[in-house]
């Protein structure tokens, strides 16, 4: 084995310029490919991937019959009436969480920091379990506090108002009203804001307020809130002011996430779907739910996959990368053929001296492997640079208005992915090398040795 290695390394060193050409060629192609493919892969990542199949967005479609559902993300949130019905339904599940997208001004009690505009959610305790929200201080509010003046803030808010100290028990003003902080969460690893079905990668929740409290304070409904045509004109009212009327309107504003147990997932999903069918049918008899598609329980995995479709620009870049890498491989074949052209005599001599054809093949496969290995390592290193460049371009594109630590999540090297990709690239290079190796191993002994 050692002798094989020695011979292989000799082969690498010989015709040094061609070897360097081959490595440079491969490194360029690999760097581009790794950079773009990592970006696309990260775009589909989520901390919720493990349970994405069991988490469903529960939608009951009260919209007009001619309302066009443009894509999987536009299935409407529940109306208040339907949310109540669902809450009271006798269904089995692990968690059920309602939320609505809101926005308010955070101010410090002590007036020692500037106010902050907060994108936030009005939700329930289940929110924290469903979305796997880690806490650095405190915990979610208790069941008994569901209507109390309490709030959970994010680390960024905590840093801004309390310099990162434990602020549990202290107060913060939300639209001028004081709420008590019960916990500080850290959403920095949550690369997308999923709870409101927007999947935004620019911001995440800065605070969570209990639903009842939010209603009492009339925190505005800032998210997707479609109404049936007859109520369209009232929508502005419902957003900002008239919460009581909203509760009886055919306007959905409560995004609903239901998580089933892993073991009984299928049965629980079936039961929930059945309930949705029966309920909407029954309501249809009362004149509601005119739409053909009356309910939809999309799971998060499907939504994440769907969202990947929207990464059109990155997909285009990736396709170019594949194309250019293919050209690299073809050029690799050319370089190997050129290299081996000069080796005919040497190989012929080896064969005359007793080396079998398989031995020759082994030497050359090892030689190619060494080169491929070097190129892949270099490619992974340079891909760091590539990702950093793409990160800068991305921040530029968003006019630096997005949260950089959040955006960075989409441009950080994923070593697991790099390893798997590296394996595929290695295989591709070996396959590309098969033809040249086949040719050179076919040199008959002494055929090149005359004169």
């Amino acid at each position, binding site marked *: 084995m050692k002798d094989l290695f020695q011979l292989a390394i000799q082969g690498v060193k010989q015709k040094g310029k061609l070897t360097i050409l081959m490595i440079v060629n491969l490194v360029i192609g690999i760097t581009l490919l790794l950079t773009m493919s990592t970006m696309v892969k990260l775009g589909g990542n989520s901390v919720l991937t493990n349970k994405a199949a069991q988490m469903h967005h529960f939608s009951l479609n009260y919209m007009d019959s001619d309302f066009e559902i443009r894509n999987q993300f536009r299935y409407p949130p529940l109306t208040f009436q339907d949310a109540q019905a669902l809450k009271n339904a006798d269904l089995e599940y692990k968690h059920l969480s309602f939320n609505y997208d809101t926005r308010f*001004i955070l101010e410090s009690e002590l007036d020692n920091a500037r106010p902050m505009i907060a994108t936030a959610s009005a939700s329930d305790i289940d929110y924290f379990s469903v979305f796997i929200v880690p806490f650095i201080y405190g915990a979610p509010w208790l069941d008994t506090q569901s209507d109390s003046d309490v709030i959970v803030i994010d680390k960024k808010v905590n840093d801004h108002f309390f310099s990162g100290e434990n602020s549990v028990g202290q107060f913060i003003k939300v639209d001028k009203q004081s709420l008590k902080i019960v916990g500080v969460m850290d959403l920095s690893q949550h690369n997308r804001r999923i709870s409101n079905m927007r999947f935004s990668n620019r911001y995440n929740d800065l605070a969570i307020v209990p639903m009842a409290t939010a209603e009492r304070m009339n925190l505005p409904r800032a998210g997707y809130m479609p109404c049936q045509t007859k109520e369209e004109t009232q929508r502005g009212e419902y957003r900002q002011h008239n919460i009581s009327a909203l509760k009886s309107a055919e306007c959905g504003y409560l995004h609903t996430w239901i998580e089933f147990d892993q073991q009984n997932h299928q049965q629980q999903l079936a039961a929930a779907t059945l309930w949705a069918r029966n309920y909407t049918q029954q309501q249809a008899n009362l004149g509601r739910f005119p739409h053909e598609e009356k309910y939809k329980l999309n799971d998060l995995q499907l939504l994440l996959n769907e969202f990947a479709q929207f990464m059109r620009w990155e997909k285009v870049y990736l396709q170019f990368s594949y194309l250019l890498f293919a050209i690299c491989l073809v*050029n690799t074949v050319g370089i190997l053929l050129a290299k081996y052209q000069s080796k005919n005599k040497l190989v012929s001599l080896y064969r005359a001296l007793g080396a079998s054809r398989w031995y020759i093949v082994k030497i050359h496969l090892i030689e190619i492997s060494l080169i491929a290995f070097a190129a892949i390592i270099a490619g992974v290193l340079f891909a760091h640079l590539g990702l950093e460049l793409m990160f800068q371009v991305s921040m530029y594109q968003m006019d630096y208005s997005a949260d950089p630590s959040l955006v960075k999540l989409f441009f950080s090297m994923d070593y697991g992915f790099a390893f798997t990709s590296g394996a595929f690239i290695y295989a591709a290079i070996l396959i590309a090398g098969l033809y040249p190796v086949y040719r050179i191993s076919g040199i008959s002994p002494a055929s090149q040795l005359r004169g």
Partner: protein
Amino acid sequence: MSLKHILKLILKQKSISILIVFQVAITLMIVSNSAFISYATLQNWLIPSNLEEKQILNVVTHVYDEQVDKGQLIERDLAAIRALPEVVSATYSGEENVIDTRRSSNVVYSDNLDENAKDHSIALFGVDQQGVGSLMLNISSGRNFYANEFVTGDAETTPASVALISDDLANTLFEEGSPLGQTVYLNGSKTPYQVVGTFEDKMLGESATYDQVWYHGMVIPEAIYGRNNELNYIIRVAPNTSEKILETLETLFYQESGRIVSRVEFSARAKKRLWDGRSSFAFVMFAISAVALLITSLGIIALVTFSVKMRHKNLGILRALGASKSMVLKSLIVENSLLALVGLVLGFFLSLWLNMALLQTLGVQGTPDIIVGILVTLFVWLLTCFAAYLPARKATLIAPAQVTKAS
């Protein structure tokens, strides 16, 4: 060497020839589209805005305390702003900010009776007495507003009755005729305003630029607040004012409680945002093009090297028969150029295809430009010649002496 011989060689080395042709074609496809997009982006950047980007600032603030009297707050704000040494003038801004549409796009009609009248996208500015000065507008015909034509107040206020429009908008609406005295109708409610003057064209609107009507603008003497929580200003500062003014203004605004500052920025920043998406795409395509050019160059070096090696003996024969080194070099370059030419022709069609595909899937407009196309094609062709030159030079070193060795 004769052209016929070169062509036969190309056909004999089919695989190498095909590979070179394809690489060149694909590279041209990518590089030319990248060039078109960059050129289009550059053209956008180069549109004369006539805007004093570093002298006009946008301010966006939100009042969240319902108790605050907006009217009085505005007065206090303006007094404080105008007291700053760097500030030349400042106006309350009730409609759009400079290249920053706050709510929705605005349109104007020349006819309020025709249901199907064409709507024209405009940049709309509702300002107070210092508005025209803060926007640094030059009146080109008619007159500026009279002091008594300005209205101010909450959402119930009666609109103003007069307006200033840009020369370009005047041309579009009224063609050769004088716009002075004519009436324009604003938005869905078709609110009428009489044109009393026009101003020199300036790129002022965000959505107006999306619709490619760079200079459509309208100014009305209305300082109306209370339609929403926003309290916006447009400020003119002295030339060469440093960025510190942004911080100064922000601090000034925070001295009033119940209000949060969303944005204080030079209009230059707003203008930059217009082309962010396309610029970013151009950057990335540029990088990908560079990679494509590199790979193809390396590829040609490799393939020509291989080709020369295969023809080692034949090249020796030609040398023996009297071909000089420069003849050998020339014929190799010619051979490569012919292949590159075929590749470029193929690449031309691929470029057009890609251009359409990018437009359809991404909505990216990189209209092919003939001159840019020709320059790019020449560049790629020259690069392939250079790449072939390196191994071709080595080929000239093939000794004629080897022909006498036994075959």
